[in-house]
């Protein structure tokens, strides 16, 4: 009897630790102040965005520098639904995802004609087109942007504190859903196909995996998640403008930095990377553009000398994995020569 096992001892410890951490974080409204809640909620959105980008670039090999297209799209969908249709913001966030996926279909059909690095710049052009189009929509503030009307905000919850708790839990829940979906996907047979593509595209194709179709599906799924998180981000900010919604710095440069530092092509990477990113930001952000230069330099150094990132180093040195994603064949001994 043989079977495939995902968990290792380290991943059992990892899952237990993650479960404890999640309980502590879920209770944050009871132990943290407003500042802490805001910071944590922002961290969650970056974990989610980086994990989605990691799925796209690290696993499917689709290096996009234009995911801000879907962050911004999600944000604008939230504002459009809430302001123009009077939809509840949380409902708007949930609807923004599927619409993001729908929009991604023609976009993918178009930019999948470009390969490799040209694909990357193609995604950027799409994001620019979205930004320019958004600044033409005058009911949503045109080029200067718009705030979420007070009526919409108040409709969420009567008291300000309750509203803040609600957005916090929403951010935590959405991030858990995104991460859970990614882990679930990677543990499925599609995940096996994806890992094969990550390791060697040609070999993957030769064992019967449709590389194009797999990448296409991943692009759509990523757009869905990214649009939803985008909507969430702009619910936190309560204000949107084309430049903030489609910012290449905020939604691509930082995300790439996080993923590369943490470890690209590993689920744990973006989580580790986000923690480091926020530690650096809390201590060095006063340096302004010098801080950004350092970030660029660190990303280059890591890419050249430790391309698997920090978690990659840890995983290789100690054989750790925090999540049950490996596949082991378990051979159970059969008693030979039964009496």
């Amino acid at each position: 009897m043989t079977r495939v096992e995902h968990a290792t001892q380290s991943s059992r410890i990892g899952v237990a630790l993650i479960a404890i951490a999640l309980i502590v974080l879920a209770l944050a409204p009871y132990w943290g102040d407003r500042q802490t809640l805001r910071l944590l909620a922002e961290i969650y959105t970056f974990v989610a965005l980086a994990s989605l980008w990691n799925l796209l670039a690290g696993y499917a090999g689709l290096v996009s520098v234009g995911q801000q297209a879907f962050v911004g799209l999600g944000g604008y969908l939230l504002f459009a639904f809430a302001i123009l249709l009077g939809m509840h913001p949380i409902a708007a966030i949930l609807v923004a995802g599927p619409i993001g996926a729908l929009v991604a279909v023609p976009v993918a059909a178009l930019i999948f004609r470009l390969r490799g690095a040209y694909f990357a710049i193609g995604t950027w052009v799409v994001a620019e087109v979205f930004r320019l189009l958004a600044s033409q929509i005058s009911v949503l503030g045109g080029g200067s942007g718009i705030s979420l009307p007070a009526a919409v905000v108040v409709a969420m919850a009567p008291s300000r504190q309750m509203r803040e708790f609600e957005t916090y839990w929403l951010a935590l829940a959405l991030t858990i859903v995104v991460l859970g979906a990614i882990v679930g996907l990677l543990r499925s047979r599609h995940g096996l196909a994806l890992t094969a593509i990550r390791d060697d595209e040609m070999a993957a194709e030769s064992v019967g995996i449709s590389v194009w179709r797999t990448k296409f599906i991943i692009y759509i799924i990523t757009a869905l998640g990214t649009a939803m998180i985008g909507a969430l981000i702009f619910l936190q900010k309560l204000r949107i403008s084309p430049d903030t919604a489609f910012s290449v710095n905020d939604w691509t440069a930082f995300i790439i930095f996080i993923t590369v530092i943490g470890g690209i092509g590993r689920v744990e990477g973006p989580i580790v990377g986000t923690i480091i990113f926020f530690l650096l930001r809390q201590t060095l952000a006063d340096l302004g553009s010098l801080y950004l230069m350092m970030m660029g330099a660190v990303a280059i150094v890591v890419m050249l000398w430790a391309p698997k990132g920090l978690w990659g180093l840890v995983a290789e040195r100690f054989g750790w994995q925090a999540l049950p994603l490996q596949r082991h064949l378990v051979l159970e001994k059969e008693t030979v020569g039964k009496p």
Partner: protein
Amino acid sequence: MQWFNIVLQGVLIGGLYAMFAAGLSLIFGVMRLVNIAHGDLIVLAAYVSLLVTQGMGVNPLVSLPLVVPIMALVGYGLQRGLLNRTLGDDLLPPLLVTFGLSIIIQNGLLELFTADSRRLHAGVIEIQAFELLQGVWIGVLPLVQFTIAVAVIAGLQMLFYRTELGRAFRATSDDQSMAQLTGLDTRHVFAVAMALSLAVIAIAGVFLAVRTNFDPAIGPGRLIFGFEAVIIGGLGSVWGTLAGGVILGVSQAVGAQIDPGWQLLAGHLVFLVILALRPQGLFPKVSG
């Protein structure tokens, strides 16, 4: 006549875009590297020219003989010291390293020169113009810039197909390990290609700075123009980049005439339409 004028202006600015594109296309052709920092290097060239112009009190166009070799040296050093390490089968390192470089250059310029908008003044040539046909005026400066763009592209074409260096470029482009076997030092060949690319960028950067305002943040936009011109023209085709640049320039000029908000959008849309209908570009040379 008004429309003829607009199209003509578009054609002339297209020369500038073609120079953005030629540098990008050159290094992609030789080493399959797409330089995300390309646009920021164009802006860097503009600032180098600003320093030379201010420091020596000369016309920006006169600063070219100094700016071009400086940028070429930067390119050679960049390739030898950094970018050669990123080349290989994996797509990520060159992409992410040049992306990091782009952030460093942008913020470095911001740190040194602030976010203020700058402009280089080339003197009386900026306002000189002559009447080509009745009612059709051509500025001397745009015409000079377009002529130089055509000359640069013709020069690159000649260099690629007529010289020993061009043969080395084509050899490494076709098969890097084979080229190495015949005794070519590919690291040096790549570095020379990058130096050449940045020399072209330097010319483009100076003309950009004379023509419009610039600040540290406009690099990515120039990268996108160059990239669009490359794809419209067709990968690997030297003259295609000129055609691509001109088409992009005309689209933007026509778009701007319809509605000022449509200038950039029109260019992007024409690019996307061509990508949809003819993904290999209008004058393709190599595939993929």
